[in-house]
């Protein structure tokens, strides 16, 4: 047994592969938060007055709020006055219009991350709105999408060029007063992505944004808004890596999705931010509010996430099933290794008739990792024939990690059906021995077993993402066997 535990440790002691800092000149606001900082952010971004008003209302609300403590996470208090709330790559007045105009160092950074923008532009059919720190630096495929009336741009551009859409939908799913972190985001958000799919249009390609945190001690406050108009559909990919650093970084993003009648939105995430080192030092604090509203009849919103990074993950991609016959889905793989902590899950709020939701959650804990699933399924009185199926499985690797499950069910309509299944298993010595007897290394055996465990979620990911996710899982697990 001793030799085994030793090799478990060895395997889990894997350094973060994507750690580096690129030297891009930053336009950074001094640390601290007050009304002037918010006015400054708004001014730098040349926003219309409705945006500034909204930010200030959020700030006023935030001052009255307390940081939540109900989660199963442990971390030192965050000093919100030690954070700089705005950083942008220094621009040459007007932003780059083509890739050639983009700072070569930024492009080099993306290359290191394996995001060949030029190649993608030519071959892959994936449009990339790449976010480096807080300002979008390159957007491809805009024209092709533009011909279909699809708007895919940075949030700042949307505020400037499509203010009526922003004003109509911003905060319609996650109001500025929603929760401590979402409210902070509403006050100070710097940039993010905006997508609008017009009536009846099926977006012909996966829309993809790569986020990357780059300036030390810069909070990241991204804001994404996706609107799928009647009868439209879109698949959106979000993937992240971040460089190694010593101080913890706060990230508090907000994602809002709106699906109108007969519209479908599929939102997939691979989150691989710096998780901290083997001792648990450093790493990203990720407090995210993601919520979709199935506003129209027969609409559908599907969240798929693979969470392997961050020191702390606090994230509950949720669906408000307002339209009759609307469908909400949540597929999640969350992996915690070393000293990572994750408190993640979903909320499914059934309001319309015949609404359906599915929750498949796979939590993997290794090293000292602590993994919590927290889910709430609410069937409101109006949700005649509401259906929910939830499956929450936990896999433990080694002796020192933990898995926790907190499902909340609230059913207020007798015609509803709600099912919940849960399991906790350890990677069995028998399974490992069986694989190794057939010739697989211990590491490959764990990868195989874990990927099998996650299969139900991976098959929901777009093809190329699924392959990446499997690799990522194997990399994140290297050194974690039990």
């Amino acid at each position: 047994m001793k030799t085994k535990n030793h090799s478990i440790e060895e395997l889990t002691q894997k350094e973060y592969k994507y750690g580096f800092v690129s030297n891009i000149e930053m336009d950074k606001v001094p640390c601290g938060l007050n009304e002037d900082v918010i006015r400054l952010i708004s001014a730098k971004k040349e926003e219309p007055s409705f945006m500034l008003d909204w930010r200030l209302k959020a700030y006023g609300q935030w001052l009255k709020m307390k940081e939540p403590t109900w989660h199963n996470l442990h971390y030192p208090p965050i000093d919100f006055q030690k954070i700089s709330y705005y950083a942008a790559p220094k621009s040459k007045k007007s932003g780059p219009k083509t890739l050639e105009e983009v700072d070569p160092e930024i492009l080099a950074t993306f290359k290191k991350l394996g995001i060949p923008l030029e190649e993608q532009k030519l071959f892959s059919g994936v449009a990339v709105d790449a976010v480096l720190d807080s300002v979008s630096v390159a957007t491809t495929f805009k024209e092709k999408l533009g011909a279909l009336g699809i708007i895919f741009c940075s949030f700042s551009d949307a505020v400037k060029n499509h203010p009526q859409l922003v004003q109509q939908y911003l905060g319609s799913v996650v109001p500025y007063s929603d929760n401590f972190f979402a409210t902070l985001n509403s006050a100070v958000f710097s940039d993010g992505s905006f997508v609008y799919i017009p009536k009846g249009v099926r977006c012909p390609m996966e829309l993809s944004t790569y986020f990357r945190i780059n300036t030390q001690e810069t909070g990241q406050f991204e804001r994404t808004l996706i609107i799928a108009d009647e009868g439209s559909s879109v698949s959106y990919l979000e993937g992240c890596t971040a460089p190694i650093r010593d101080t913890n970084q706060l990230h508090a993003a907000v994602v809002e999705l709106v699906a109108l009648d007969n519209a479908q939105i599929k939102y997939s995430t691979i989150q691989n931010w710096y998780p901290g080192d083997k001792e648990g030092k450093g790493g990203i604090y990720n407090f995210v509010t993601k919520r979709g509203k199935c506003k129209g009849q027969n609409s559908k919103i599907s969240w798929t996430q693979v969470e392997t990074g961050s020191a702390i993950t606090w994230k509950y991609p949720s669906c408000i099933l307002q339209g009759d016959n609307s469908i909400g889905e949540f597929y999640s793989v969350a992996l915690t290794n070393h000293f990572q902590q994750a408190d993640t899950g979903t909320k499914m709020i059934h309001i319309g008739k015949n609404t359906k939701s599915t929750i498949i959650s796979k939590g993997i804990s290794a090293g000292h990792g602590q993994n919590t699933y927290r889910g709430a399924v609410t069937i409101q009185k109006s949700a005649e024939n509401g259906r929910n199926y939830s499956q929450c499985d936990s896999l433990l690797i080694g002796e020192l990690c933990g898995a926790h499950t907190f499902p909340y069910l609230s059913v207020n309509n007798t015609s509803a059906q709600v099912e919940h299944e849960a399991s906790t298993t350890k990677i069995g010595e028998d399974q490992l021995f069986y694989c190794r007897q057939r010739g697989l290394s211990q590491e490959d055996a764990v990868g195989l077993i874990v990927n099998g465990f996650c299969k139900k979620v991976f098959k929901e990911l777009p093809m190329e993402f699924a392959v990446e996710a499997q690799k990522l899982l194997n990399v994140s697990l290297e050194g974690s066997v039990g």
Partner: protein
Amino acid sequence: MLQIKNLSASVDNKKILKDLNLEVKAGEVHAIMGPNGSGKSTLSQLLAGKEGYTLDGGEVLFEGKNLLTLSPEERASLGLFLAFQYPVEIPGVSNLYFLKSAYNALRKKRGEEELDAVDFMELVKEKSKLVEMNESFLTRPVNEGFSGGEKKRNEILQMIVLEPKLCILDETDSGLDIDALKVVSKGINATRSKNRGIILITHYQRLLNYCEPDFVHVLYNGKILKSGGKELALELEKHGYGWILES
């Protein structure tokens, strides 16, 4: 090929194997028979590299190499294969993918080129006919929801595909009905070759009617009490294990 010399081993301070000696040469089929608790499974698990056993003495050489210092995967790449008494389930991993991963891992270790999915599929299709498994079998998760007979046939399929030098079959016949036993035996017989050693661990004579061994050994209380030809198995069947003790 395999030389076991004065092997003694224990689990939780309980002596299971005591001064066991056995030699298996290429081309030979050895049957090891014995009652419950005689140490049969311990022997097979120990040879395959399962942890949790304490070596108290003796050595095991496999083609001249000291087997007991190697990891299970190293032993596998040298050509040692264990057909499990209780094959393990791996949910979410297809039989085909598992087998291909194993096959290519072994090839890689031996410095051979890995086989791509198409070529491998052809190979497996051909081999699975031998154990009368249809293709749907390959896409199902490893052993999950398999019947007892299917699990054992799957072990034989893996053995046929991986082409080991030494096959140890741990009670592969137990829990099989007569039809499944025939299929499994057919697979084992197809594996017989002059370059390959086979150890059949079993309780019963039944399997040996279909797979004729060259040698039969009786394992009792951690020791080989008696060795002989195939007729020894028939004697055992007739008289029971008590007969060995008395004689």
